């Protein structure tokens, strides 16, 4: 069943989009991530223009994360104060990211730049995830008492603020910086950034794992909403028909994935997720490196 996407100005099989949404939703439910980092490259792979794929990917991640946020908020697993500080940085970052995106688009480098961002970011994150989880699997054998959280350089900066729910008394600068960075990546890559935000919250900010998921979902929802807004206003790439089709499959898939994910162990899940992230990075690197079918490409000048 072909459907015409009004913003992408092309006709795509609606069932294919619902299917992609379902598959990505299933994996994201399984691993508890938004899935934007899988979705946006897949959309580009089936020929959706990259500016539409990024903007609509962010829009779909927003929808996919809302229900998770509601569930976490109900269980009081959201540190709203920390979330607010992160989001403040995230909004600035998403604005800056969209400016960068618009600039790259004007220069005709958006496809390569998005791919390069994916390769670098996913490559590093995937590698860290796999290493960390492998280490955790080995460590499981001899359990050690854990400290409340690691003290790092991030705890010695000015503008300190008390975050009761995270049991932290730290400077607001690291969370703002983390939020900003994720915001930029979210805008350029069309992702929520949860898979980068969660480790940053644990290792850089030292937040307890109980509030990490809920608070990161709060950040993802706010930042993807802001990316959707700025992308739509400045670049005009948000295709609501595309978003809704992806969400139709995505929300169903996420529920199936989540019920299956509950049966997997944390470390194994993280190792699998790390491998998946690395796989996407390698695939995009491959596309960037192999000689293109045609040396030339044509686009309509805006």
């Amino acid at each position: 069943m072909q459907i015409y996407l009004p913003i992408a100005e092309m006709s795509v099989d609606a069932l294919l989009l619902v299917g992609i949404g379902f598959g990505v939703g299933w994996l994201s439910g399984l691993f508890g991530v938004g899935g934007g980092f899988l979705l946006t490259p897949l959309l580009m792979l089936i020929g959706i223009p990259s500016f539409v794929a990024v903007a609509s990917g962010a829009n779909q991640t927003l929808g996919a994360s809302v229900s998770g946020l509601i569930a976490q908020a109900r269980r009081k697993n959201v540190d709203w104060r920390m979330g607010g500080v992160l989001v403040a940085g995230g909004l600035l970052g998403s604005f800056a990211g969209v400016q960068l995106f618009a600039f790259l688009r004007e220069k005709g480098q958006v496809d390569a730049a998005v791919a390069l961002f994916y390769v670098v970011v996913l490559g590093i994150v995937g590698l860290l995830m796999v290493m960390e989880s492998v280490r955790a699997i080995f460590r499981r054998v001899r359990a050690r008492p854990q400290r409340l959280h690691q003290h790092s350089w991030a705890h010695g900066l000015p503008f300190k603020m008390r975050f009761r729910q995270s049991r932290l008394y730290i400077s607001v600068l690291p969370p703002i910086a983390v939020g900003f960075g994720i915001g930029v990546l979210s805008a350029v890559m069309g992702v929520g950034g949860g898979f980068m935000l969660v480790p940053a919250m644990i290792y850089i900010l030292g937040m307890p794992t109980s509030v990490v998921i809920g608070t990161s979902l709060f950040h993802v929802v706010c930042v993807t909403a802001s990316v959707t807004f700025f992308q739509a206003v400045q670049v005009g790439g948000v295709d609501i028909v595309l978003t809704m089709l992806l969400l139709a499959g995505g929300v169903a898939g996420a529920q199936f994935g989540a019920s299956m994910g509950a049966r997997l162990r944390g470390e194994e899940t993280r190792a699998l997720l790390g491998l998946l992230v690395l796989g996407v990075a390698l695939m995009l690197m491959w596309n960037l490196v192999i000689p293109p079918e045609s040396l030339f490409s044509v686009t309509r000048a805006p």
Partner: protein
Amino acid sequence: MRALVLLLLLLAPGLTTAQPLVARLSTDRVDVTTAFVGESVLVFGSTEQPIGPGGDEIIVVARGPDTHFVVRRRVNVLGMWLNGPSAHFDDVPSFYAIAGTLPAWRLLPEEVRQARGLGLDALPLTPSSGARSPQFRAALLELKRAEGLWLEDVAPVDIAGNRLFQVRLPLPATVRPGVYEIAVHLVRSRQVVATERMGFIVARTGSAAEIERLARLQPALYALICIILAALAGWLGSILFRRS
């Protein structure tokens, strides 16, 4: 001689009661809805004199709205293929199709064909800015052909009973909305003796049109609607598909 020709031309409509060429389109409007997968427009008509070898010949040309194209060449930087030099082509038809009872170059003298822009190689494709290499022009022609947006003699004009002709112009799903002009030329002894001009519009309609218009004219409002719809869909979906 010139005066004679002028006189003949002035008298021509009076002398001949039947027109040498009559042509029509199957539609004057192509709607781009959310179910749009492309369409084809039929150009048909009849001639006074028999069509065929030694007689009249028909050339049908269709042009879509003009647009600007940027052609980019990929270059290898540090092992990665990035977009390098580019060439800009202004006022180029976004859609172009030509079909004839025979290819135009066999029916008309070269200078007439070039002057009338009959054939892809007769399109004035000179880059307005950027790289000058003829490779870019060739690449534009090749890519637009591959997209099915520039068509040259894909199928010949179909003739029935020496008088009726018809040809189908396939419009792919990627056609630009706008005004499409069709010219049907009647060629006799290597000269264009009559031309019929028609047109149709390609217009977005229904929800596709409304979405596109809203996104273009009120992007902030559109963005807010996208945010709210996505959030609602995500929330509703999680209730519908809850498995607990």
